[in-house]
């Protein structure tokens, strides 16, 4: 038994180091879970063509993806990263510090964040200001910030439903939450004179004010699984959910999206930038890996092809809101020309 153990140990060690030495021939992508459905769809189509292996796509979150992406250059590091927001300057600098010099920024389309409820409930038309009043931890009242006193929607505005405020939404670790806070809470906060004052005097306190969501039961962190939120909304017609447009699209027979600032969350409205709660989605690529890892250029070509990200492309079928025609052309040229990002 001793001899066979020694042999096994040697074999394992050989394999371990051999694994290190072999060059990677498969594209590796990490990053945002919001962009994941789209990047994976492109990866699958790309692989089906048969010339290259299907890329491996991990869903690590936008921040986690940047950490991995900016860790360095070489087969041990990912080639592309998905992001539900633009790269931050600090992340860009980390990249540069670790040798990731040329980063190609790819805007691939838009995503809408909707406030949805069961079709059985009455349709809602709400403003971002009202959403802030419903969901913030502290709301401005009579000149100062007080803990959120509103328990029913119609206390905020008699036109809103006479129902308890119950919103299921993403946890703080989610990129969707970050986007929601920026597009709704921050935007709404700036319309209140008390908070505008606060922004001028204490930037930090202002940030805390708009990003703190109520914890008394009005807002329920429903985890990262949006399918679960959909199920709960189906069971509870008084509750609302916050999630990406693709889930509304896939469940349009059960759910309806609320109008925000008078605009309905439809494909056309988001594409035309009329719906206010929408954000661009990005993919970032390492120019240094092009040529080292086979297929990156071809993958980018597939992503920027009309049949993928066009108005009637397969990504639109999956819920990605495409950019307007001119914007698409512009970005396609930038991406296929591997234009490096400058910050």
């Amino acid at each position, binding site marked *: *038994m001793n001899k*066979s*153990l020694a042999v*096994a140990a040697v074999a*394992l060690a050989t*394999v*371990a*180091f051999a*694994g*290190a030495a*072999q060059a*990677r021939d*498969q594209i*590796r992508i990490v990053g945002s*879970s919001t962009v*994941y*459905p789209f990047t*994976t*769809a492109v*990866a*699958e189509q790309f*692989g*089906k063509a*048969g010339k290259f*292996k*299907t890329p*491996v*796509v*991990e*869903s690590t979150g936008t921040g986690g993806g940047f950490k991995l992406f900016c860790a360095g250059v070489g087969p*041990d590091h990912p080639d592309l990263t998905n992001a539900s927001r633009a790269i931050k300057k600090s992340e860009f600098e980390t990249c540069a510090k670790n040798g990731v010099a040329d980063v190609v920024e790819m805007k691939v389309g838009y995503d809408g964040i909707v406030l949805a409820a069961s*079709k059985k409930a009455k349709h809602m038309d709400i403003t971002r200001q009202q959403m802030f009043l419903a969901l913030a931890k502290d709301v401005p009242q009579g000149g100062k910030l007080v803990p959120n006193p509103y328990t029913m929607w119609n206390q905020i505005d008699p036109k809103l439903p006479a129902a308890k405020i119950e919103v299921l939404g993403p946890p703080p670790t989610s990129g969707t939450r970050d986007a929601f806070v920026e597009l709704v809470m921050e935007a709404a906060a700036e319309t209140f004179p008390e908070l505008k004052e606060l922004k001028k005097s204490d930037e930090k306190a202002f940030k805390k004010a708009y990003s703190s969501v109520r914890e008394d039961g009005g807002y329920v962190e429903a985890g*990262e*699984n*949006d*399918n679960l939120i959909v199920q709960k909304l189906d069971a509870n017609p008084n509750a609302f959910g916050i999630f990406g447009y*693709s*889930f509304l*699209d*896939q*469940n*349009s*027979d*059960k*759910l*309806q999206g609320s109008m925000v600032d008078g605009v309905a969350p439809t494909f056309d409205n988001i594409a035309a930038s009329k719906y206010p709660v929408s954000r661009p989605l990005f993919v970032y690529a390492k120019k240094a890996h092009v040529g080292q890892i086979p297929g990156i250029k071809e993958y980018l070509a597939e992503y920027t092809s009309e049949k993928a990200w066009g108005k*009637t492309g*397969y990504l639109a079928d*999956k*819920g990605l809101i495409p950019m307007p025609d001119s914007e698409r052309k512009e970005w396609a040229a930038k991406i296929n020309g591997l234009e490096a990002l400058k910050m």
Partner: protein
Amino acid sequence: MAENSSLVRSTPAAMAARLKRRYAAETRFRLAGITAIALALGFLATLIFTIFSNGLTAFVQTSVKVEVAFDPEVLGIGNDRSPDALAGANYGQVIKESLYKQFPTVEGRSERRELVGLVSSGADITLRKMLAANPALIGTTQSVWLIAGDDIDMAMKGHISRTPGADGNRLTDRQLGWIGDLERQGAIRKGFNTTLFTTGDSREPELAGLWGAVVGSFFSLSITLIVCFPLGVATAVYLEEFAPKNKWTDIIEVNINNLAAVPSVVFGLLGLAIFLNFFGMPRSAPLVGGLVLALISLPTIIIAGRAALKAVPPSIREAALGLGASKQQMVTDHVLPLAMPGILTGTILGMAHALGETAPLLMIGMVAFIVDIPASPMDPAAVLPVQVYLWADSPERAFVERTSAAIMVLLFFLGMMNLAAILLRKKFERRW
């Protein structure tokens, strides 16, 4: 006289009351036990029922019969019949043309798009395989059953409403009408979903399968078994039979017991730091996954092994030693074979536990969209619980039932492993 015996004479009232209370307490205790079991079985039944009722329909897949014309011009191959040409031919267009012909009244771009949506976007693979097997079909028209699109499949299974005019329906009224037409022609049917068991992951639910995850799990668990069985048994034997009983072995024992209780995600971090960053092993590979799972299972096997070894009676050991066997011979020839059933049971249960681990694999990159079936433990792969997690997060309606189906497959393997453990134990049970 019998009537005067202290047993027959009526017991005093206090005694009777005490007896009554004791019996009442016993009855309550028994009721509590029965209620507990009933509750537990109730939860189990609810769980199984929910999963099965959700997942059973996933084992069935709708297909649509299309009169496919293998027109070489449409295929774009002309006179070329080489395998490369056949592989790269435009099967998608062939399907489109065949559908247009089958529904000649359909005109207009958006209408035609809806028509093509009846069939899966991956149906071209079926045609490619047909021609690769039999190039003589070129120029002929064949009736082929093609996989239906996922929304069509959902409608046929009743998960999407088939009433025309329903607000927000994923299928247009036209598509609902065509489904009705196909039904009347007998050109739409439900069959066993072989795709689920033969293909890897896909973004299209009707093309998604578990085979990649099953192979990934198989490779991972094989590596785990190969590493932690000999290592675990040898450690248990050394600690139980050969190690001197001093402070150091006490510390080791305490540490091993604690390791068995460490959350498994910590082992994932360890795997990331050592296997991926230090040794540079390929990311997302079952090799690394197997090693991480081995680290998790090792304490379990060591503890089970030690318990099994302790259970071997000292009389057997003395008999062997008395005959002049050395300590190692005593352990190898007598103690280990007798402890083996217990060790095997512990190993199988450890493996069953490892089969369902997901969190540690997240750290080493095995929670990823991987389409290709792994050919070796070094190719990137997912495992069954990871596939469940990924599908649970996908918005497409058809993935809901497939998630439950994946859970059913996972539970099946777990059940088989537990059954093997029970049978082994029964077979080798010894009476001293």
